[in-house]
């Protein structure tokens, strides 16, 4: 791709971008949210038409008119939000849009055979073909998408943030598969925020910033610090600020808390003025634990004490008690995309009578504090970049003036700059005597921001340990159940 330019109205999303992928290489595309990665990939796949620039595929001019043309040319997109029909069985999902037919009818035998073959290639040959895809774990759903690209004979597979919701073991499996595809001559474009992953799996990288290519090269030749500096255009020295602080009295105490399915048993003591990290594999029950505390899911046993209040309470009560939560799923739960920024930010604490101007005014201090970039408080929150959306979700807790913050993957899928803002605010809050319970699957982040870390494994929460005693290895061991975690 050379000299690609794409503008929406007056906003230039891509300007003179060049991008080159060699056959059989894994090429990482990195950049902050809004840097233009998705737009570039949409141009590649034919979902968007470029305003200028040219593309070549195997030396032949390539100008797809729509995604179907892109697919026919051998380009497969696997987006962050998986795009498979949840109710259709596995086999039909694998061959979605390319179902073998005999006359007007679906050729079921051929369908099953081809689906099985494709699944075998991605190492999941044992998946039952007739199960609705929605019942499978997210990692298997992703493999189905990759199997689909294999079945369609894709020459370039684009993976957009493929690991953001995968557990460590599934990430390993995915990387093995990527290497296998590469060995077979398939090119992979790998989009990720996780530089460690990029370093591990990619041969070369291209950095996009503000719609321009700023650097490209071999991954082995660039350090993480260099890459981050290229992405943000400035060096981030203290990504994880952690001031020295002294924890106060406990504000949230759990005793053998059990939910309807998960968690099985969770005991912890969260104190004022500390950040307590919750580590664990995806599916270990960390999200369920937070939801049970906050009254979003039912509680089966054990006790929750918030301040002087004992027992489960609905979310409305929790807010009143000074507890607030940021959801891991920004789109489905965290924010109402169709509402304004002001509505979203103030929803948890509003007066009986209000005016839109009041709401706007209430937002202003939080915009400044978190450096939220938006045109106006009346803008729809869905129109903001991921990072700014997440800042709004965090600002909601600040506006409500909560003492206890339950943060579930607060930095998932957002750019480095926004992440830094959120870490800074977490640190400030803890220093101001608030208590933060932070769930994260990103270990450097947990080790960088938390004072203590507890590891959850298969629904059971281990004891919290000082972060100084821990490293990634120890956490991973505990998370995978390799060592006994319950004291």
């Amino acid at each position, binding site marked *: 791709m050379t000299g690609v330019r794409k503008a929406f109205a007056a906003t230039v999303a891509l300007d003179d971008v060049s991008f080159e992928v060699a056959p059989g290489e894994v090429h990482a595309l990195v950049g902050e949210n809004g840097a233009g990665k998705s737009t570039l990939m949409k141009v590649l796949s034919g979902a968007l038409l470029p305003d200028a620039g040219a593309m070549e595929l195997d030396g032949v001019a390539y100008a797809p008119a729509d995604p179907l043309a892109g697919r026919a040319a051998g380009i497969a997109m696997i987006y962050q939000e998986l795009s498979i029909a949840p109710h259709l069985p596995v086999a039909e999902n694998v061959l979605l849009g390319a179902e073998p037919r005999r006359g007007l009818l679906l050729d079921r035998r051929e369908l099953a055979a081809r689906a099985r073959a494709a699944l075998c290639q991605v190492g999941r040959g044992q998946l039952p073909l007739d199960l609705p895809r929605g019942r499978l774990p997210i990692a298997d759903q992703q493999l189905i998408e990759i199997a689909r690209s294999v079945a369609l004979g894709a020459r370039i597979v684009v993976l957009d943030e493929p690991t953001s919701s995968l557990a460590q073991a599934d990430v390993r499996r995915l990387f093995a598969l990527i290497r296998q595809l590469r060995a077979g001559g398939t090119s992979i474009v790998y989009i990720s925020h996780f530089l460690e992953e990029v370093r591990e799996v990619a041969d070369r990288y291209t950095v996009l910033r503000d719609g321009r290519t700023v650097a490209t090269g071999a991954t082995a030749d660039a350090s993480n610090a260099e890459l981050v500096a290229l992405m943000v255009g400035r060096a981030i020295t203290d990504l994880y600020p952690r001031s020295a602080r002294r924890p106060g009295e406990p504000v949230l105490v759990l005793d053998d808390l059990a939910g309807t399915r998960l968690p099985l048993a969770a005991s912890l003591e969260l104190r004022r003025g500390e950040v307590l990290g919750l580590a664990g594999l995806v599916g270990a029950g960390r999200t369920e634990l937070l939801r049970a505390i906050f009254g979003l899911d039912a509680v089966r046993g054990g006790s929750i004490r918030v301040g002087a209040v004992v027992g489960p309470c609905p*979310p409305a009560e929790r807010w009143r008690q000074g507890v607030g939560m940021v959801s891991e799923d920004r789109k489905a739960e*965290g*924010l*109402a995309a169709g509402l304004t920024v002001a509505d*979203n930010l103030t*929803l948890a604490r509003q007066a*009986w009578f209000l005016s839109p101007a009041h709401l706007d005014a209430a937002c202003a201090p939080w915009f400044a504090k978190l450096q939220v970039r938006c045109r106006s408080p009346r803008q729809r929150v869905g129109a903001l970049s991921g990072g700014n959306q997440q800042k709004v979700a965090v600002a909601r807790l600040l506006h409500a003036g909560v003492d206890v913050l339950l943060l579930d993957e607060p930095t998932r899928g957002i750019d480095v700059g926004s992440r830094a803002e959120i870490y800074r605010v977490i640190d400030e809050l803890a220093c101001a005597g608030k208590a933060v319970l932070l769930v994260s699957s990103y270990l450097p982040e947990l080790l960088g921001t938390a004072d203590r870390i507890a590891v959850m494994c298969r629904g059971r929460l281990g004891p919290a340990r000082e972060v100084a005693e821990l490293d990634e290895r120890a956490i991973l061991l505990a998370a995978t159940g390799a060592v006994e975690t319950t004291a």
Partner: protein
Amino acid sequence: MSDAATTRSRHRWLGRLGPALGLAAVWALFAALVGPTFWGWENQRLMLLQTAIVGTAAVGATIVIISGGIDLSVGSAIALGTVVVALLLNAGMPEFAAAAGGVLAGALVGLVIGAFVTGRVVLPRLLGRIALSPFIVTLAMWGALRGLAKGLGDNRPVYVDGQPALLDLMRNTGTGLGAVAAPGVWIMVAVAVLAALGLRHTRFGRHVFAVGSNEQTARLCGVRIERTKLLIYAFASACAGLAAVLQFAYLGQGDPTTAEGYELKVIAAVVIGGASLTGGEGSVLGTLIGAFIMTVVDNGCTKLGLENWVQEIVTGGIILTAVFIDRLRHRAR
């Protein structure tokens, strides 16, 4: 940047003014085709009067639709309301009390709908809460309320002795404000102002939008979803009850077969007014304009001597056009 900003503000204006421009266009078209018998003051008063009933009910439906729900029972609730008012009058109740009874009957209907929609039905405690979709619940009510009205009215219109003063609600004979429009029209306006202010300037109003835009988010933010929905359906059906009082005044009798299909007219008015059936969007002013557009089409077509079937096709076209323009606006955003 300034280019994009003007495009955006243009779209926002289009969103606010879209229905009003549509009304102006339709009105001007008929004014040109028909002449003074259309644009004369008397006809304006008549059209306002013809809008009052659907308009009043549509104010309530706007709130339901903003919250992501739907109410198919409006027509049947209106019929039930007219019968209740007539029966109460015949039982010797004072007129004000009879009218209040009609509104109250509506509110009760709304509470029942709300109870099913939120799963707050007391009886099957053992089964736990089972929330039903508002489409299903109000579809059931659409049938059940019509049946109840027929049962109460013994399958006939319920005649009322004499000339109750309630009938003046829908007569263009008043003085003062009444000389501008009938009291029923002012009732519609008052309810609309109340609802519009409530949506914009109260926490409840913001919660209605939040529930409609993303119920999960609303729950996360501590909005008491069930209480909010219960209130929404109670208010909407009370509006239908008020519309029933006006319908009674218009007919001069209770009629279990009246207002057939009004539920769809009401939904059409809300949609033409710019609301989204997926929730989270809509305005009371837009709805009133939507209701008035439909009256203008009916009235204008009648004046042109066009038959009923033409009106119906034109109304269908207007609904499609309104929604089409609305989608276009959303895509541009």
